[in-house]
């Protein structure tokens, strides 16, 4: 490891780099285009944070989701990464103008792909030296992938307009065919490709089917009792998160709450921090939870229902066991869940919804609904409503194919992990009793016990003030 890389690493509070980080950072600093495929939780952020601190000028980071952007800004501000800003639709005109006027003073600029196409933004960026363009979640560029965003198709052209700076594309999910598309679309030259296995050997991949919905709930309760340590339970719906949080509110040894996009921002923030801090140890959540949450000791992640894509599933379970210790994950579903998801993926948004969004795209810009987000993205990429309806019809094929991959995974006769790795064109560990299938008591017995932290009880505002304002004396 180069001395200056080590120095930055220590400044960010780390002692060592994880597998893949050194190779990627070295290649970026050598001026190469790089495609990095790293599993969730393996430290993709440092792959651009360290080069960004060492290179002159701006590091531009393209992110597909507002929530992800916000989390990255907060983390980077916390780690002292220099001036960081997120350019997105939540900024009003005056704030946007103020930021663009001083863009060159920022070290890291996070931006959505749609905003990057705006003339005023592009103009400000071309006037500022951009040394590195990072395309996070680069698999969004793949038109036949489940997370496709039309604006990602323009990134290659935009890169040229920015002076053809080096590009670092990062993703956790990229089969070989997708890697080729990423390289081509981003106009990568002689790219260095680091493709780690996306396998997480420390995670048990539980897959359990039950005839009735009620049995799924019972199984959740049983696992919450047997497993000690923080747990995330991904639910089918906002309603289910609240229902289950109420159902298990008095489970001995557990402090539960729910989290979804319908909870107001301050409450969501409190619950997230309390989960990270240990004040809560059980969260019933929708996919709105977890972006940027880097809690190392999550011992269990349950996914209730059948996911529409293996990418969604992989991202959810990836939040378990980031400390490298054994952790249990389980996809628990009922027979009805298969048909629920099948119906969901075959539903097309009505043309009236497309028209409503086109009439007031700004009003839908911050929706957390994936279908609405995609239509907004098409609008920002200047598709006509008719073209959007046609594109959405075409995507039915994509969604069906993704769902078939999920069913293949669920019904794998030999090894679920092997089926998952085949989907991502990745190597995985050989099948053992600690690999996958029905969650066994034997595996649960191998889980480490959580560290017992002494928790202070804060009763009354005066006691809280003494703590937070350091007036104990």
């Amino acid at each position, binding site marked *: 490891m180069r001395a200056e890389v080590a120095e930055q690493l220590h400044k960010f509070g780390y002692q060592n780099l994880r597998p893949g980080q050194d190779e990627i950072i070295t290649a970026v600093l050598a001026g190469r285009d790089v495609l990095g495929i790293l599993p969730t939780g393996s430290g993709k952020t440092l792959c651009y944070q360290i080069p960004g601190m060492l290179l002159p000028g701006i590091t531009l980071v393209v992110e597909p989701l507002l929530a992800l952007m916000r989390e990255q800004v907060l983390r980077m501000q916390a780690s002292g990464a220099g001036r960081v800003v*997120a350019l997105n639709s939540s900024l009003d005109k005056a704030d946007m103008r103020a930021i663009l006027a001083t863009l060159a003073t920022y070290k890291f600029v996070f931006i959505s792909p749609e905003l990057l196409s705006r003339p005023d933004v592009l103009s400000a960026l071309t006037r500022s030296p951009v040394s590195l363009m990072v395309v996070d979640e680069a698999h969004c560029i793949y038109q036949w992938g489940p997370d496709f965003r039309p604006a990602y198709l323009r990134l290659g052209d935009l890169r040229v307009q920015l002076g053809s700076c080096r590009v670092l594309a990062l993703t956790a999910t990229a089969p070989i065919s997708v890697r080729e598309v990423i390289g081509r679309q981003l106009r990568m030259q002689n790219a260095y490709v680091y493709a780690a296995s996306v396998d997480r050997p420390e995670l048990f991949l539980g897959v359990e089917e039950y005839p009735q919905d009620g049995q799924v709930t019972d199984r959740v309760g049983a696992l919450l009792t047997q497993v000690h340590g923080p747990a995330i339970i991904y639910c089918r719906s906002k309603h289910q998160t609240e229902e289950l949080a109420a159902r298990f509110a008095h489970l001995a040894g557990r402090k539960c709450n729910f989290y979804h996009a319908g909870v107001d921002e301050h409450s969501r923030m409190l619950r997230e921090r309390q989960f990270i801090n240990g004040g809560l140890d059980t969260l019933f959540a929708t996919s709105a939870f977890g972006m940027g949450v880097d809690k190392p000791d999550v011992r269990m992640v349950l996914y209730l229902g059948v996911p529409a894509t293996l990418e969604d599933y992989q991202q959810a379970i990836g939040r378990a066991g980031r400390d490298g210790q054994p952790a249990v994950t389980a996809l628990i579903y009922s027979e009805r869940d298969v048909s629920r998801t099948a119906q969901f993926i075959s539903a097309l948004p009505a043309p009236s919804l497309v028209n409503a969004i086109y009439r007031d795209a700004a009003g839908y810009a911050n929706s957390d609904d994936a279908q609405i987000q995609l239509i907004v993205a098409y609008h920002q990429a200047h598709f006509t409503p008719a073209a959007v309806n046609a594109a959405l019809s075409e995507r039915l094929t994509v969604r069906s194919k993704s769902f078939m991959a999920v069913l293949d995974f669920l019904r794998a006769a030999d090894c679920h992990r092997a089926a998952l790795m085949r989907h991502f064109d990745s190597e995985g560990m050989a099948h053992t009793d600690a690999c996958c299938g029905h969650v066994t008591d034997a595996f649960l017995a191998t889980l480490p016990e959580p560290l017992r932290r002494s928790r202070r009880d804060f009763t009354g505002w005066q006691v*809280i003030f003494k703590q937070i304002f350091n007036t104990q004396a």
Partner: protein
Amino acid sequence: MISLDDILLLLLDDQPQRPLGLWGVITGRKTASIMFAGLQHQQLHYFGLLAGLSKPDYLAAVQRLLTAKLLQQTDEQVWRTATGRARCAQLHGMAATLASYDPELNVQQFAPRFFLAVQVLSEASYQQRQYVPLSADWQVQQYVRRWYHGTRAELADTVQELTVIFSQLHPATADYLAMLMIGHEYVGSGADQDSPLRRELALCDLLHTIESRPASAWQRLWGGRISLLPPAAAQTSAEFLRGASVQELVARKHRRISTITEHLQLAAIMGQQLPLDRFLSVQQQAVLATAWAGGQRTYQELLAALPGVEFLQVRMFQIMMYRRQNNAR
């Protein structure tokens, strides 16, 4: 636990009104027709109280009140029944809590600034420069950063001011607000008792106390009361008061006449003293006053008393009368 159904029952009127009129007021929709309905039914005090309340959730609550016979309806209007009024009498505690709300306090803007400011002061108290800020909003961060630069030399004094302010709050309110804070090695507590409305009302109590301390750093953080009148409407009103006619304003501002009349109505509803003589002659005012004294309130009834006048003229008369009536109560 603050129940939506109880809140709506308290806010709705004993006089018939379109239910979506109240929804528009409490979710902060600033159109002349919504604000007029709010004025008519004395609901403007609760403007923006439940900004995030969806229409389906609101209508579901209204339906529950109808089913429980606490409301009655005819055509498209609802109002309280005798049972509903009796239930309201039992809710006097909640009514007192709601009374602390004041839309001019601008609590929705103050809240993220306040909690971030507390976090900043907390971490500074431990000389901690690296922490995850609780708000990623650029505007909030910039605002608090500027405030902190003007405050950090008096960190201890600023903390002491907040302590004094909290000591003046009801203890339950102070405890509750403290449980929502984020600070050094503290991430709040009791989140299961939190609700956006409860938080909003507690912050209103805090702001009433901050308002009584104009020299404090916390007053500077807050920034003071705001006018609910949109800037464009305020400008139209100011030019009207300087003598411009409606037609002159339309030409000068390149706006539609409906926009200018909307501005004037909003200004009048929100308390600007637009002389009625600019809209109606003395004789016309007398005719409408007689009709009003006879119990005629609606636009149609008043127009029937004075045929040939325009909508704006009748509406400005109604606004003046409702404001007088509400001020007298």
